[in-house]
């Protein structure tokens, strides 16, 4: 008997089991978003798990997809911050690169050209990378991105423009 098709247990008014439904419906999309933010699948899955583990008990009216996306964005930032701290620590001991590396299978699937683009994306400052992911992967409007990243819409537009210009320079306009 799976929980998908079972008649749901009745819950008190205003206390629908929204969280479980959101998790079932959007987990995959959120992991995919997180993988673009943190770079590897394992960390991305951890990010989404941690976010949902913290959402228990939140009022149902705040449990919306934009809110959860923002949580994923913030959790991804924490992962990157921790990685940064660890990388700085390891520099004292000797050069080390703990940036996640795609598996051979993933690398083959992506192909050289896409990997080049993704590598350039990975070298962008965090905020530029985030707005590009939200604009070109999630397809959000300037207003939505501004709300998620807590900056003005004009800042979103200028950040996107600067990020694209830098990618253009790095990739040398090759297609």
């Amino acid at each position: 008997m799976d929980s998908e098709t079972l008649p749901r247990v009745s819950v008190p008014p205003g206390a629908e089991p929204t969280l479980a439904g959101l998790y079932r419906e959007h987990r995959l999309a959120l992991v995919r978003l997180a993988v673009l933010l943190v770079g590897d699948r394992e960390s991305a899955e951890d990010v989404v798990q941690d976010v949902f583990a913290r959402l228990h008990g939140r009022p149902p009216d705040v449990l919306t997809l934009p809110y959860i996306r923002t949580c994923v964005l913030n959790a991804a930032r924490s992962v990157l911050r921790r990685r940064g701290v660890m990388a700085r620590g390891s520099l004292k001991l000797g050069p080390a690169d703990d940036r996640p590396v795609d598996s051979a299978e993933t690398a083959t699937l992506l192909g050289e050209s896409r990997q080049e683009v993704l590598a350039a994306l990975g070298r962008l400052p965090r905020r530029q990378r985030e707005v590009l992911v939200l604009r070109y992967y999630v397809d959000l409007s300037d207003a939505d991105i501004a709300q998620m990243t807590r900056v003005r819409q004009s800042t979103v537009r200028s950040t996107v423009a600067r990020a694209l210009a830098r990618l253009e320079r790095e990739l040398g306009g090759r297609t």
Partner: protein
Amino acid sequence: MSSIEDRLKDAMAAKAETVRDDGRPRALPAPQPWHPLRSRWGVPALVAAAIVTVVAGTAVGVRGASSPAPAVRPTPSGPGADLPPIEDVWPDAVHEIPVKAPGGRTFTPDVFVNDRVVVGRGLTRNRLDGIWSYDLDKRTFARIAPLKDWSVGNDPLVFGDGAVAWSAFRDGMTEIWTVPVMGGIPRRIASFRGVLGPQNTYEGITLAIADGMAVWSPANGGVYRVPLKGGRPTLIKETKGYRLLTWPWAGRPYSVSDAKERVHRPMEQLIDVRTGERVDAVPPPGRVGWSYCGVRWCINEGEVWRRDGTGLQRLPGNGGTRLYSERFTLISRHRPDGTSAIAVHDISTRRTGVLGIHTIGMNVEPFPTLHLEDGLFWYRRGSKQVLVNLSGIR
């Protein structure tokens, strides 16, 4: 759109697609322990505490021979009556155990193997890493078997005949595994093609252990069996289209989504898969359908009645759409102070015990997520978890 934008979109979509949809349903991650400092002290808004329930369903019970005798006095349930806490109603069934097993792993309880030992899964970073038991008398954990297998679904473990069983979904095949409850090495006893549901997702199986066999129903029905020693799965005669409910009973239609009519009558037809005996559900006069029907009782919108349509009774609260261990249901009841009591109601004895209070207010600790399995309700409370062993209530 410039070419750099196209390249970027294409590369990001391709990278995201590397996270494949394997079709396995995932359980909602367990909550992190609540800490007062994490609550929003600065938010000047009412925070509505929500009760989230997680229903786990794959495990089915094995019906015992005796019916519960309604010898005890029913709980007073008039409009002004205050319901007693569950610990007072069924003191032997409510237990508090640690959340953390040795090694810092989280223990997720699944099934009581007797009144004093509960078996469950050990999770590290929400990933399965072993099967563990907890002894309520010794207050200690014991590892039954290590199990690091991403193919194992989130359905609860089942127990019977001295063995713990579970299913896994790997490369399109459903596998059934067992391990002795006293400990040992997990053994695969059956492997067969997994059945995908209408959304092309794997929907698991309904699994139980009974009469020295693992018995199960896949999503498209039929009751299958295989000896616990292993062997070829066989379809039990004349069970095509039936779903295992509680061994030895299987029923159809399985869920409301199976029903073509607008009136929902799930599990209307039951058969004893051993003898072929058939028992149809009959609603009481004036009722035409129900939300859930077990072997003995049917339930619908705050009312319950016996499968033969007799014994109609009103539940002492709202809710009540599903039965657990054949006779328990979860209800909520408004209290004079504006809060709601969340309670477990026993249909057989008409006794009711309060699990917790659903409160609305600022900085109120929300009622934890309530996990509902057939023989066990549980929720986290700080570093402890509270277990209600429904299968142990006589």
